[in-house]
């Protein structure tokens, strides 16, 4: 299980290959990539800055991945979350799950994202034409997390 918090961009293909490694028993790899959009809440977004809590960020992501392992019989999980300043179209986060079959891999991937959105200590700040603003947490993210209770 690998969790990385970094400023650098990542290559999804390379990371998935690395996740598979030399294992011959992986039948499914499900991945999610989160991207920066150029619009949010009706306003144009020129730039996004991701702040985080060094120390807690990695712990939080590891805890979420550990929980996914308990709930589903999966073989490996990779989470990469970028921090710092990004532009529209940039990649923010990658969650990849390897399993024997697609059922558990899909479920675990969605679970990790739903928990990451509500528990991992990251905060987004947008630059819009009218100035900078902090992104508000969404109730829909709390609802998404609650589905897994």
């Amino acid at each position, binding site marked *: 299980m690998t969790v990385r918090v970094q400023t650098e961009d990542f290559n999804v293909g390379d990371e998935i290959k690395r996740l598979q490694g030399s294992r011959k028993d992986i039948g499914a790899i499900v991945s999610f990539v989160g991207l920066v959009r150029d619009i949010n809440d009706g306003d144009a977004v020129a730039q996004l800055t991701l702040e985080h809590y060094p120390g807690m960020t990695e712990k939080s992501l590891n805890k979420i991945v550990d929980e996914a392992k308990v709930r589903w019989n999966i073989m490996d999980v990779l989470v990469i979350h970028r921090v710092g300043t990004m532009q529209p179209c940039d990649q923010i986060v990658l969650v990849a799950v390897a399993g024997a079959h697609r059922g558990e891999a899909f479920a675990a991937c969605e679970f990790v*994202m739903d928990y990451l959105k509500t528990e991992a200590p*990251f905060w987004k700040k947008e630059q819009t034409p009218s100035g900078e603003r*902090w992104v508000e947490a969404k109730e829909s993210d709390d609802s998404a997390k609650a589905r897994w209770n």
Partner: protein
Amino acid sequence: MKIKLFYFARLKETLKYSTEDLELESSAEWTVLKLKNYLAQRGDVWGQMLMGKLKVRAAINHELVHDGAVIHDGDEVAFFPPVTGG
């Protein structure tokens, strides 16, 4: 007892504090809520931010906790708005 405090995102920006060392009266039991109230007494933005409309989440030693969680000597306490990663 001594604790280390961290503030993040909009909280840090408005309070103009990212971290501070705080000494609290040892005889009392300090919960997260009691600490929020205590810091709010500093007035102005402290009251607005910590006991106002903005939801303030807390972590003790890198674990998310509720307002009733008890703080101990040497703990690292962090206050921040609801998270928005991903």
